[in-house]
């Protein structure tokens, strides 16, 4: 955008409506964001000197040269400081009753505006340095036409929290118009779950990285045996570094994972060095999956992931993280979170359903599984592949070694497809794929009997259409009463 670099908005002091005032982020934010640049400059200019001293060559350098180095270094620091100042000066934000607007950029001005009722999730992120300074970044996903998130970095932690509460209350449609200008107090929340560090450590040790490491060790031993040479570690070093990095990422991002409930949705907090707090309002979760890797079967642990519009995280797509609902938990905790995320599972026996979904096979709890004839193409999974349709959601089960369970509410289905390849066709089977917003949860009902699949496809599209008509609007508090009366009506009819 080539808007000339001039003040876009009048001075906050002149504005009569305090609600629409423009605010600035915290002055040291550019430094927190750009600290790497400063470190780089210090490193480049400091290294020679330090090395010189250690090598005893400090005297060899002519004093002119030292002044030159100091001068250039200072100039670079000044340029960076001016740039930081300008970048801070030109970043402003405004929160109105309908929108959040952020203007930024010095030469290339950028104006971003997000509708509050389209907020899909609000994240409060604190990278390590920001944590030291008591600052936080506020980020909200809006999922409007593929546009990415709106970010405010950085605000004082308390301000960020207040702003989050304000945005949530305005987005919910529950805020009083009278209380509009005032900032909302923080909402009370109720802690539901806390993953202990010990379990995170254990889960990391038993993660997929360990399986990779074991395979690698076996290969290394076999190779050294075959080649009759001692173990060659150096060739495997990059792979080992990758695995260690993966351990670290898993551990630090699952550390101190806590889940709490509030009226405006669920809140997840986690992180070892960089921390993140996600708030996901009701009705924003598009699909949930529960997976169990073979190693976790011994400890009875599961992992839950979710799709939220804007978070991304589908295979091969850029992700902004935040797709984990539970990094590691027992079956009890999984069921507890399921109840939170889908308060109305639409079945008489939700516990039995999810038990069967997590570890059952064949037709426990009403699952429809693959026909017996597909055992030739999927000898292990044909008893597991299955689905159940409840009044509100489709539950798809698959995987014999990596157990997988996915739940997608009818009203969240975007589109769906029936697919089959030559092999499935030969065995009279078909897959039904449900499309939801991008994310790690892929919902695929695998290898169903062809007639069952076509029937499910037909019924599912009419169920989705029906569910859309009754779905709650974007403003979750506004529609509470309406929704309740509608439900009541349905019950009396049915």
């Amino acid at each position: 955008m080539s808007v000339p670099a001039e003040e876009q908005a009048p001075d906050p002091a002149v504005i009569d409506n305090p609600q629409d005032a423009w605010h600035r982020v915290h002055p040291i934010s550019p430094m927190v964001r750009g600290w790497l640049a400063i470190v780089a400059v210090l490193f480049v200019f400091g290294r020679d000197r330090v090395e010189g001293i250690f090598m005893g060559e400090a005297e060899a350098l002519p004093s002119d040269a030292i002044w030159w180095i100091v001068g250039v270094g200072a100039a670079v620091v000044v340029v960076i400081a001016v740039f930081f100042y300008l970048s801070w000066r030109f970043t402003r934000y405004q929160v109105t009753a309908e929108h959040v607007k952020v203007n930024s950029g010095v030469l290339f001005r950028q104006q971003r505006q997000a509708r509050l009722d389209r907020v899909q999730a609000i994240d409060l992120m604190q990278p390590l340095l920001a944590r030291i300074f008591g600052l936080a970044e506020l980020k909200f996903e809006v999922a409007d036409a593929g546009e990415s998130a709106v970010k405010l970095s950085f605000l004082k932690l308390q301000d960020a929290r207040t702003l989050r509460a304000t945005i949530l209350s305005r987005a919910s449609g529950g805020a009083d118009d009278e209380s509009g200008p005032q900032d909302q107090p923080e909402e009370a929340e109720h802690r539901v779950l806390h993953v202990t560090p010990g379990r995170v450590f254990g889960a990391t040790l038993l993660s997929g990285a360990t399986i990779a490491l074991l395979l690698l060790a076996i290969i290394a031993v076999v190779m050294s045996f075959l080649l009759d040479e001692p173990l060659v570690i150096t060739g495997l070093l990059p792979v080992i570094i990758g695995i260690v990095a993966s351990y670290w990422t898993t551990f630090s991002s699952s550390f101190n994972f806590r889940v709490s409930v509030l009226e405006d949705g669920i809140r997840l907090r986690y992180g070892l060095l960089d921390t993140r707090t996600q708030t996901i309002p009701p009705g924003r979760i598009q699909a949930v999956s529960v997976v169990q890797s073979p190693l976790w079967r011994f400890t009875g642990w599961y992992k839950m992931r979710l799709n939220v519009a804007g978070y991304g995280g589908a295979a091969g797509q850029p992700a902004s993280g935040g797709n984990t609902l539970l990094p590691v938990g027992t079956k009890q905790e999984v069921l507890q979170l399921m109840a939170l995320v889908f308060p109305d599972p639409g079945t008489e026996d939700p516990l039995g359903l999810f038990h069967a979904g997590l570890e059952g096979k064949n037709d426990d709890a009403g699952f429809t599984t693959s026909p017996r004839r597909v055992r030739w193409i999927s000898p292990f999974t044909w008893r597991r592949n299955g689905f159940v349709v409840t009044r509100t959601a489709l539950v798809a089960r698959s995987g014999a070694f990596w157990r997988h369970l996915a739940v997608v509410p009818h009203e969240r289905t975007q589109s769906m497809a029936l697919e089959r390849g030559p092999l499935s066709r030969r065995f009279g089977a078909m897959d039904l794929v449900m499309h939801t917003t991008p994310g790690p949860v892929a919902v695929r009902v695998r290898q169903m009997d062809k007639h069952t699949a076509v029937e499910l496809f037909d019924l599912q599209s009419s169920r989705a259409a029906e569910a859309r008509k009754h779905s709650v609007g974007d403003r979750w508090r506004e529609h509470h009463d309406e929704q309740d009366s509608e439900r009541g009506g349905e019950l009396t009819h049915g």
Partner: protein
Amino acid sequence: MPSEAIDPHGVVWTGVSKNYLKVRLLGWLLTAVIWLVVLSVPLVLVLIGVWTWLPLWVIWSLIALNVVISAWTGLLIPRQVRAIGYAERDDDLLIRSGVFFQRAMVVPYGRMQYVDVSVGPVERAFGLCSLKLHTAAVATKAEIPGLPTDEGARLREQLSARGEAKLAGL
């Protein structure tokens, strides 16, 4: 249009234009010729004795393989074109495609975010266009190629109107 087991019940499919077959065949011909030219370069080089390290039979078998694959894909094209179809229902649009890897897809009108109509140079020469539907799900790869231009425009207007009438949130 033949209705197969993958189709939902009671759906009458509209096929795409016969001209689309010509577009596909042109594209196929072009690819086949390019491959043939690319593969004949080493053949010529070996025949005039510049490359001596490559045995002649390797090149001939590569060329033969290319011809077989081209013929196979060429023979498939008419069936592939016949397999493409769409059907407008009250609440959603159905699209089917594929011969070996078959796919039947349903896109509710209320979920459509935008509709793209695109025309390439070859398509334009044959009076055709392609229509693409986008929902909030990336996996929705809903494309109807080879629509007559009028039909494409009509469908676009129809879909937009219905989409607006039935628009649902995420």
